[in-house]
């Protein structure tokens, strides 16, 4: 019993068996988190560094809690305030950290492919906590885990991923993960925010009509507009985006059924999602955050075995 990979760089590299193994492990770790003492000693001889070259609230705290609750020692590194600003390279930075006897790296980077590049130059397991516009694998795992928990399974479920598909690593990882688990996926958003040929490349449905997509789906995963990654205007204003693609109570009430609402956070309230929807009973946004710790614990548990890792 083990994963088919040495690193978690993306859902693209995982098999369906890998994902199911992570979920089965996460089920039991979630129980640990309900105990009076929410901690097990499994990784007490493991030191993990969280290397964050990009801002994060949830992912970083979630990883740190996951590491601590598995008994690991944790070091945090953020690019701001470090010697990166003095011109140190990525490999040098990480190798310097590793020479202080660190056993595992969790990394977020604004450059697409940064963890893949790093994995060719260091020999400890790497967990990708988000790389540019490529993948955010642990987010996709916790999203699918939350769907499985809420609806009893992922196979055959219809999931609409709404918003900025073009710049969202959450969208790409979610598509890979959901497709591997047998779900149907529709991406919906303005044409400028949906990559060309995505329907053929990733075998998803494409819609430009939010109401049509919501009427079709069981679950809507609503994404944030990634303004920090857009270097040209792709829609006229946030207000207009919100009017055309925002998910609000009126829109949901016009459907003939109750769908599950998800959001990976951070929410821009009133833009992609209205407050009354985000805080309603059909939203599982905070369950997603809770499940993030258990799924990340499962990933770390399954990758952290002290075997020599060679590339």
């Amino acid at each position: 019993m083990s994963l088919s990979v040495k690193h978690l760089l993306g859902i693209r590299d995982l098999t369906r068996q890998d994902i199911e193994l992570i979920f089965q492990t996460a089920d039991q770790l979630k129980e640990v988190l309900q105990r009076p003492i929410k901690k097990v000693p499994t990784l007490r001889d493991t030191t993990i560094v969280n290397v964050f070259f990009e801002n994060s609230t949830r992912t970083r705290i979630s990883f740190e809690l996951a590491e601590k609750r598995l008994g690991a020692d944790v070091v945090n590194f953020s690019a701001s305030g470090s010697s990166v600003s003095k011109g140190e390279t990525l490999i040098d930075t990480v190798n310097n950290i590793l020479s202080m006897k660190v056993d595992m790296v969790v990394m977020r980077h604004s450059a697409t492919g940064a963890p893949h590049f790093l994995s060719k130059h260091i020999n400890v397991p790497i967990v990708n906590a988000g790389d540019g516009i490529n993948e955010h694998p642990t987010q996709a795992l916790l999203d699918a885990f939350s769907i499985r928990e809420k609806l009893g399974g992922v196979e055959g479920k219809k999931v609409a991923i709404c918003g900025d598909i073009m710049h969202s690593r959450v969208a790409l990882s979610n598509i890979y993960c959901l497709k591997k688990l047998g779900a149907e996926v529709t991406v919906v958003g303005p044409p400028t925010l949906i990559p060309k040929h995505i329907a053929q490349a990733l075998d998803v449905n494409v819609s430009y009509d939010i109401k049509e997509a919501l009427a079709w789906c069981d679950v809507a995963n609503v994404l944030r507009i990634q303004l920090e990654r857009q270097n040209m205007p792709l829609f006229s204003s946030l207000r207009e985006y919100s009017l055309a693609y925002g998910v609000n109570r009126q829109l949901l009430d016009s459907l003939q059924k109750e769908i599950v609402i998800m959001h990976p956070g951070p929410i821009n309230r009133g833009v992609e999602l209205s407050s009354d929807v985000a805080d309603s009973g059909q939203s599982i946004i905070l369950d997603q955050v809770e499940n993030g710790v258990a799924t990340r614990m499962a990933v770390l548990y399954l990758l952290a075995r002290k075997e020599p890792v060679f590339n």
Partner: protein
Amino acid sequence: MLKHFVLKSILTDRQLAITIDRLSHQLVENHLEFKDTVLIGLQPRGIYLSDRIYHNLKKLLPGTHIAYGKLDITFYRDDYKSDKGLQAPNETDINFSVENKRVVLIDDVLYTGRTIRSAMDAMLDFGRPAAVELLVLIDRRFSRELPIQSDYTGKTIDAIITERVKVLWKERDGKDEVVLIA
């Protein structure tokens, strides 16, 4: 059903039932009303024994509430980094505190004692018990790697290191039997 060669039968289905009955009576002898006693079966294979004992006790003591849980020790093992490979975790289901309780840990085979060591670690995360006892179906004596002994024993056997004791359960393996395999 078994990939291994069966050397001999240690307990037949009838002997197994009698042994489990005896162990249940011994528990009643020492714990009477089970007021401050909790039973904890160890995953994955100890729970079949603990299920049988729990149902026996319900029959012996009708109307008595007996606290019963199942404990998985995967995350407490001392061989996580060894060559044995990763273990798949099983369900832990303990919906009570063991604080000041008399805990009876139940497992099928006592061999090196390492599982019980892990189980005691795991159990302590649910409180500080007043006392802990160990009940096992089979005790492989002279093979302990830790100073751990059982308080209730179904049968004590001698087996060499290359042999394995396998407890078969009707619910899982299709028949009740304890066998020595190689």
